[in-house]
């Protein structure tokens, strides 16, 4: 049965219900138009196991499931109709959140976590504007060919040399990116720029500043667009933190706060008091936040001094070697750039971590440590600047012990996440991963196509 389209000019044949799991993969299912109409207010049943399956399709054990999880109970995915778009002729797409039967948000629902923190900011009179730089690496081979090769020894699309800002990329790479932004325009995702990045085949695509929930939606959907376009053109794309043993790739988040339309991070002479507290909160939570914004084993292979990612818990005005860069002095563009997340992060969790740090800093009046005016990489221990946890297990321990992130993200989420990372760490070590390899085959198989 079909019905008149509500989002486009063609007849709606199906609606794709979408939401991310904890790993950041965009999950969902297609429903008929009639099914969608019947459930669009009350929601659709999804098995809660979507939060308990790892990237190897194993059930994750190690934590005490709360009562609502039970023996694989269902939860409700309720679509947010403001996200309804015509994804392609005949197929509409809508993003939703996960809710419990009693009407409470699922405590570990990524999108609801962001919504809750946005509401808490609003309680202080603030609205946040956020943007992200998405990095990804493109390969000539189709995903089928990549799978057949175990995702190894692939050919970077656009040439085998790394570059930044170069316009000499070959037309196959350019055609891919042009097709991506065409699709983003079609589905209403605001983008600002794209360019080649540091490594062979790598690209950076900037999503336009918007509210934090919408940014999460756009980020998750953009990754889906980039995959679909790659499939259509016979190529493949990866958001692994390190898809090859070469360069890593990140996802810098930019954020500013407004009140009554005025940028609260702006001050004539540098940092506003609000910005200072936000920096204080972001640095106070950074060790624990690492577990969330660097979610996978491979995420930590990216933490190499002098190669781009931050390696110290540091901040500085316009200092791109630090973990938090403060851009100051402009009434419109004053903002903070949080440079820690890898490209493999769950978009909503990454945004939630930034909002949690900003909120903690503001509510608890956390003063920032001294900024790093030198290069923030490779600092000696005597500098007093701590290193970012450089393994999944260290980062998990830091998160488990972080009272601020427990307060702002909730004990249930933190305990769930710490257990899931311990599971991932155990899977890597005991199921074939090799910590001594530059990039083990186990990691390529597990992370290349996900999240």
């Amino acid at each position, binding site marked *: 049965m079909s019905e008149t389209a509500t989002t486009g000019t063609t007849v709606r044949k199906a609606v794709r219900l979408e939401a991310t799991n904890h790993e950041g993969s965009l999950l969902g299912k297609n429903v008929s138009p009639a099914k969608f109409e019947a459930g669009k207010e009350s929601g659709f049943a999804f098995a809660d196991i979507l939060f308990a399956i790892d990237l190897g399709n194993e059930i*994750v*054990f*190690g*934590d*005490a*499931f*709360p009562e609502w*999880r*039970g*023996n*694989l109970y269902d939860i409700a995915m309720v679509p947010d109709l403001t996200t309804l778009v015509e994804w392609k002729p005949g197929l509409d797409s809508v993003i939703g959140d996960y809710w419990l039967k009693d009407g409470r948000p699922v405590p570990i629902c990524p999108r609801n976590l962001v919504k809750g923190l946005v509401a808490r900011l609003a309680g202080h009179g603030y609205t946040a504007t956020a943007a992200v730089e998405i990095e990804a690496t493109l390969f000539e081979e189709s995903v089928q060919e990549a799978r057949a090769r175990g995702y190894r020894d692939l050919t970077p699309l656009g040439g085998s040399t790394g570059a930044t800002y170069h316009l000499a990329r070959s037309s196959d790479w350019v055609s891919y990116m042009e097709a991506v932004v065409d699709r983003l325009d079609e589905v209403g995702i605001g983008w600002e720029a794209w360019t080649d990045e540091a490594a062979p085949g790598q690209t950076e695509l900037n999503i336009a500043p918007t509210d934090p929930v919408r940014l999460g939606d756009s980020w998750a959907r953009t990754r889906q667009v980039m995959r679909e376009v790659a499939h259509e053109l016979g190529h493949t794309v990866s958001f692994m933190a390190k898809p090859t043993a070469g360069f890593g790739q990140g996802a810098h988040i930019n954020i500013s706060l407004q009140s009554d339309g005025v940028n609260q991070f702006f001050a004539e002479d540098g940092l506003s008091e609000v910005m200072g507290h936000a920096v204080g909160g972001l640095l106070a939570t950074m060790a624990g936040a690492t577990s969330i914004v660097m979610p996978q084993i491979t995420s930590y292979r990216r933490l190499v001094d002098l190669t781009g990612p931050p390696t110290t818990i540091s901040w500085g005005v316009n200092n791109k070697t630090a973990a938090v860069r403060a851009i100051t002095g402009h009434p419109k563009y004053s903002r903070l750039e949080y440079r820690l997340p890898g490209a493999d992060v769950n978009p909503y969790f990454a945004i939630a971590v930034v909002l949690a740090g900003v909120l903690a800093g503001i509510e608890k009046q956390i003063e920032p440590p001294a900024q790093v005016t030198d290069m923030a990489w490779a600092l000696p221990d005597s500098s007093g600047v701590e290193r970012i946890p450089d*393994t999944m*297990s*260290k980062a998990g321990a830091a998160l488990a012990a972080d009272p601020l992130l427990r307060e702002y993200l909730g004990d249930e989420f933190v*305990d769930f996440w710490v*257990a899931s990372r*311990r599971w991932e*760490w*155990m899977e890597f*070590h*005991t*199921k*074939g*991963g*090799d*910590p*001594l*390899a530059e990039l*083990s085959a186990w990691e390529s198989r597990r992370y290349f196509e996900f999240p």
Partner: protein
Amino acid sequence: MAATTTITAPPTRPGVVRVVSEDDATPLARLVGRTLQQALHSGHAQEVLETTVGTVVVRSHDTPQVATIAFSGGTIDVASGAQPEPGATVVVDLNARFALTQEPEGDGVLAAAALQALTPPVPHWREAARRFWAATREIPGIPDVLVVEAVGPDGSEHDRFGEGTTTYGIAGPADLLAGIFSGADDLLVSLAAGVRIQGTLSQLSVMTAASWKVRFDV
């Protein structure tokens, strides 16, 4: 003249042995370190632990896992990875209590000593269960009561540990249960070997954490 008392000097205590694992160790290094600690505390292979000198690399037979034991006749250091030019290398099945899967390389005596140290006898299942239950009480969500049915040569034996309202049941061969409770065996792997469980999925999840605590000290 005052009476004198002859005090017999205590026997010379051989080198005080301690096991030191590196920080942020891998699961294999943790398993090796925890097993050697267990051997030490139970008095197993005491002479080996006190007098052995040399470096032994322990490799998994089916994964890249590798750790190095450095015996010094006193402190025993356990580290992740393989130290170059070890005295011996053993390749073992980590899901079969360090069972050798191929002939050791290098110093055969040193390899045998390491393997002996790594295979302390598992305690009786009842004692192992009691210790397991005591060691895992602080894990959030752990059930109040453990009900065990151990099947041995003489039939089934039962016991209960703890008191409260939430109960978890586990049944299987007595030796395998003893292995799970003492950390010698992995709970999830043991399910395929005949162990049966009764409880909720969330309890199995928490019991997995408990199993890892006694096996890997995580």
